[in-house]
């Protein structure tokens, strides 16, 4: 069945709510408004206001309350409308959620799931569109997931709610209306491993989030030009599935890392470093990266498009890397 990325997220939330009475959703405008991006439309009517909780504009307050509710035996899904707003709650996420288990010597775990919509491509300018996964992926104590595909948009939440520790789940606003095939029985997915979305033998395109479908598009174009590119969706940004990265590169001997996030101190820097450290002698060419240009996101469409990798940029980078 073809469904939109938005519908996939919604089905995941709905399934999680039906499966476990401890699960509730809270966030700004998730109830009466139906979700800022209409993701939770209709859920208030179905589950009631005890389980679909509209919150005030208090990111630190309600994210902290989600952490407390998790400590108290609930399984909260906390929605942060836009990644930029998550910084208002970063103290709660980093100083509390990620730290309590450790500070308490293993006594108090925090099973909260924080969904953050992010991404670039809807002309929302510099305070409503960024790709800040790396910022969270740096923090020990957090599990950081990136739902680049419809299957993950639907299935990651279900598994994340089973995790005893705090999970940050990134979703991508630019893909909300995008349709894809998803089996009717698609459900919970693994949240420990990366996934090879397209096998190939000439080069590994290693990516996540908004980079996934763009890399798939690029790989399809490359195939018509005689280059067989593998696409590896990282999916889990912390902890990284290092074994899968090394395995792929060891087979293809070339790696191009693709991400929307700013280039410096990014997920791609980390992946690149690990390839250098662990399988340098397998490489036929230096690792290359296609990343977000280091500017706050501009408003005009043509400038916004220029800040993040496009399929054509990926194709061009592959040709350059392969020397053909």
């Amino acid at each position, binding site marked *: 069945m073809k469904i939109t990325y938005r519908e996939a997220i919604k089905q995941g939330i709905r399934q999680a709510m039906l499966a476990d009475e401890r699960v509730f959703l809270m966030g700004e405008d998730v109830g009466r408004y139906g979700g800022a991006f209409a993701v939770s439309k209709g859920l208030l009517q179905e589950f009631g206001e005890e389980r679909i909780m509209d919150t005030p504009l208090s990111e*630190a307050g309600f994210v*902290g309350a989600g*952490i407390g509710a998790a*400590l*108290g035996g609930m399984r909260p899904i906390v929605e942060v409308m836009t990644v930029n707003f998550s910084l208002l709650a970063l103290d709660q996420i980093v100083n509390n959620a990620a730290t309590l288990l450790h500070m308490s*010597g*293993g006594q108090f775990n925090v099973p909260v799931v924080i969904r953050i919509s992010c991404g670039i491509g809807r002309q929302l300018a510099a305070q409503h569109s960024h790709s800040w996964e790396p910022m969270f992926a740096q923090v020990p104590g957090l*599990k950081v997931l990136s739902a680049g595909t419809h299957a993950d948009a639907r299935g990651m939440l279900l598994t994340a709610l089973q995790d005893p520790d705090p999970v940050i789940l990134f979703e991508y606003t630019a893909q909300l209306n995008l349709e894809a095939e998803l089996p009717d029985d698609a459900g919970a997915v693994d949240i420990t491993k990366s996934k090879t979305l397209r096998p190939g033998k000439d080069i590994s395109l290693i990516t996540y989030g908004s980079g996934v479908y763009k890399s798939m598009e690029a790989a399809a174009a490359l195939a018509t030009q005689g280059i067989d590119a593998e696409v590896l969706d990282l999916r889990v940004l912390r902890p990284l599935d290092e074994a899968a990265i090394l395995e792929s590169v060891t087979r293809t001997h070339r790696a191009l890392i693709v991400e929307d996030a700013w280039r410096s101190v990014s997920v791609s820097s980390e992946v690149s470093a690990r390839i250098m450290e662990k399988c340098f002698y397998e490489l036929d060419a230096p690792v290359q990266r296609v990343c977000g240009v280091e500017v706050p996101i501009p408003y005009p469409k043509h400038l916004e498009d220029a800040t993040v990798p496009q399929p054509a940029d990926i194709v061009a980078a592959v040709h350059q890397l392969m020397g053909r």
Partner: protein
Amino acid sequence: MTTNDRDRSIDLLRQMKLIRHFEERAAEMYTKAKIRGFLHLYVGEEAVAVGVMQALTPADNVLSTYREHGHALARGVDAGAIMAEMYGKQEGCSGGRGGSMHLFDKRTRFFGGNAIVGGHLPMAVGLALADKKQKREAITVCFFGEGAAAEGVFHESMNLAALWKVPALFVCENNQYAMGTALRFTHASTDLVRKGEAYGIPTHAVDGMDLRAVIQATDKATASIRKGDGPRMLVCETYRFRAHSMFDAELYREKNEVEEWKKRDPITQYQQHLALGEQDIKAMDLEVAAEVQRAIDFAEAGTWEPVESLLRHVTTEPITAT
């Protein structure tokens, strides 16, 4: 006063003395470099912790600040485990990972020891919300200083607590100084009671140096909360007799101000109220000193966590069958 009541009152005095003596010995151990990092003493504020905690049941949740030794002791966290934590030993109540500012204890539902000022307030709202949703008969008590009332997260938390009518008691310990800056230099409106009331939370000022006043106010507030009337807040006027931490030259206050407050020492006041005989007081002091000495002995005998297990407690360890 019945015999039971009197025994209970005497025990409350003993608890205050335990906190006082425990901290004096902790300061001594700090100067001997047995305890490192920050050490924030509660000396002078004991009536607040003891007076509030006596109203709680084992099912209730407690959250506190980085000046929390007194809260932990009054809640019933083992004194030896607290001292061992301050030593950094693995027998400590947080396995040695937290130190003085991060005391945790699952058995007594003591959720720390938070050293981000105000950072635990929204967590308290969430814990209380979880109890409400699960219809548990429990309340959440959250201690914080008047300095926290200047943080944005205080205001967010008060609003959420009142909006969701959660069973929580917010206890503001106004010890007059946010670290070394007096209330009048940090708050444009120094009436802290109004800050709770502004969010629709019934709030009362309490003489935090008077154990009986704290008990009376807390009993009343917790009774309302347990009835389902929503959150309450207390502003306990109190004073720390010692420096903010062990790195404080106390340039910001006059010695005679400290001396004036010491005349209202909560322990002296309550001891006089109980009119205990000299022998009884002496026996209690000896008992308390022995308990603290046992705590120190326990900490001294404690062991260091091996460096090999450094990565523990970052994520939950899988439960393995034994």
